């Protein structure tokens, strides 16, 4: 006991020694403080939304928005929200567009990237240029609307999925990734009789998991979070095709000049409950993809 105390004291004394208080330590102290505060700043809004969604309306009004945790958590906001038919319709639309959109987009981009990475693909150069131009030139909101109207996609589910099917950036990233794979691997597979599709599926994709994971995640999160396309191409009265984000946005549009939709969520705690429902799926898949972030994003940015 005696000994241990002294050693802690000694360690503290060593820690406090004058020559140890140099610029290195001040710098590290500054970094620790700053990054700790920043992490709080990123976490607090999350806790805020969650706490608010678990409050009763009276508590919400009484506490004037200043709180960390609810005193008496209730699920009354969730209860109300879960009785709304619209929520289930919106969830269904969001899940469907996320699954269909992300898979379709990733598969199309991977296939295109694969074709572009083959030296004996006969349209290699023109197609690369075609994809590249879409990255730096935008056709404009109104012409896009007219095209989608002409193609008969207004007020259909497919408007979420088809126009953005082939992401130029994603395809070019896949091209760069596949080009980095040594050709010997592919040649040996070809000698063994593997088809082009087989090579892509069993060799190139598993070898480049970080890229695949990051692109899949981005497509999925992009679809899940999208509301702008729905607000442009879907009638605001069309409840069957209102994604979750747009449902939440409608709650605020009463203050906007372009209102006109029926507002279902008038109470703050209910909005927060819907927001939580929108956040939870992202937080659930986040840990599985996190290990791929650094590699996938870096490869994509530097080579793409």
């Amino acid at each position, binding site marked *: 006991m005696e000994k241990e105390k002294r050693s802690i004291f000694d360690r503290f004394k060593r820690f406090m020694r004058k020559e140890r208080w140099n610029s290195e330590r001040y710098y590290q102290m500054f970094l620790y403080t700053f990054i700790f505060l920043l992490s709080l700043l990123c976490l607090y809004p999350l806790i805020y939304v969650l706490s608010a969604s678990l409050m009763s309306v009276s508590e919400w009004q009484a506490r004037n928005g200043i709180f960390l945790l609810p005193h008496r958590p209730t699920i009354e906001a969730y209860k109300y929200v879960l009785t709304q038919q619209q929520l289930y319709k919106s969830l269904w639309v969001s899940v469907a567009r996320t699954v269909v959109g992300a898979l379709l987009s990733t598969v*199309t981009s991977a296939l295109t990237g694969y074709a572009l990475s083959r030296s004996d693909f006969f349209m290699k150069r023109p197609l690369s240029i075609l994809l590249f131009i879409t990255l730096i030139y935008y056709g404009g909101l109104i012409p896009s609307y007219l095209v989608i109207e002409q193609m008969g996609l207004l007020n259909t589910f497919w408007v979420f999925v088809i126009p953005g099917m082939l992401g130029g950036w994603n395809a070019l990233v896949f091209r760069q990734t596949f080009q980095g794979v040594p050709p010997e691997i592919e040649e040996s597979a070809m000698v063994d009789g593997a088809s082009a599709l087989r090579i892509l599926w069993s060799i190139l994709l598993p070898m480049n998991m970080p890229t695949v994971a990051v692109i899949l995640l981005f497509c999925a999160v992009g679809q899940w979070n999208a509301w*702008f396309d729905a607000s442009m191409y879907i009638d605001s009265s069309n409840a069957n095709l209102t994604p979750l984000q747009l449902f939440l946005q409608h709650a605020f549009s009463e203050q906007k000049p372009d209102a006109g939709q029926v507002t279902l969520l008038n109470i703050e705690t209910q909005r927060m409950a819907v927001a939580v429902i929108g956040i939870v799926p992202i937080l659930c898949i986040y840990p599985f993809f996190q290990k791929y972030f650094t590699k996938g994003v870096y490869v994509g940015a530097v080579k793409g």
Partner: protein
Amino acid sequence: MKDTRKFYGSDGREYLLAERTWKEKILISFRKYWVIYLLILPGIVSLLIFSYGPMFLQLIMSFTNYRLIDGVFGSEWVWFNNFVELFTELPEFERLITNTLVLSVYYFFAGFFPSLILAIMLFDLSSTRLRKISQTIVYIPYFFSWVIVYTICYGLLSNTGLINSIIINSGGTRIDFLLNAHYIRSILVVTNIWKSVGWGTIIYLAAMLSIDVTLYDVAKLDGCGPIRRIFVITLPGIKNITVFLLVLALGGILNGGNTEQILLFYSPATWSKADTIGTWMYREGLRNPDQFSLAASLSFLQSTIGMILVLISNKLSTKYAKISIW
């Protein structure tokens, strides 16, 4: 392929293999990859229709006087009349241009510097575990939709929100931040930083990992302080990727910030400071078919100047950072 063109037969003589004509090449490539060609066809068709269709329509519409009954192709060809009308007949024109440029510059700085600074800080952090944890946390906001960010902001900034309650408790007067034109730009920029600052560090951190660690040890031995090490080792080490990202950001300098975000955050009270080309296009342009041509010519100008900026900055990047976008 190249070395198979010349080979020695069993008789010991040299034979030359004839160069394949391009027809043969296409035939071979089709035989090998026909499944792939078939599978990528839908994607390419959708690209042509939904990306190139609008580009083409935009080009035509900016030089014609679009009327609903005539359609895009039947409308009268008016040459540059639309562009002249932009300056003379669009009352909001000045406001739109000013806001677009100002917000673009704000977003440019907000998107570029905070991430760089945070990346350096995370990199210099002595504890690896703390770095990992804080990285996990600061990435999270990037995956939230703007609607949810707005929901959070509304909770914090509205008339009855957190910030106003604090102001009242400390004896101040209520400020409706979201409906006040003075604050809207700051709110837009701050929320944008909050959402993307963590994610932006990934690229820099990956680049910093490739810097030789012994450089830091040597510098420490020579008495080089932590701040000086940033400027002498870290920044030069990530120079190329920084210039590259700068170029990408410069290319977006005419976008007028993030239209999707602004549409959620602004309101009639704050139009004077936050109404950009993109939001006007959505609010007014789309509503009124008589203005389609005007709107198309405006976005034509925006896209074209934007593209020229990307090409110029890419030239600069190739020259100074030796990294090109393509």
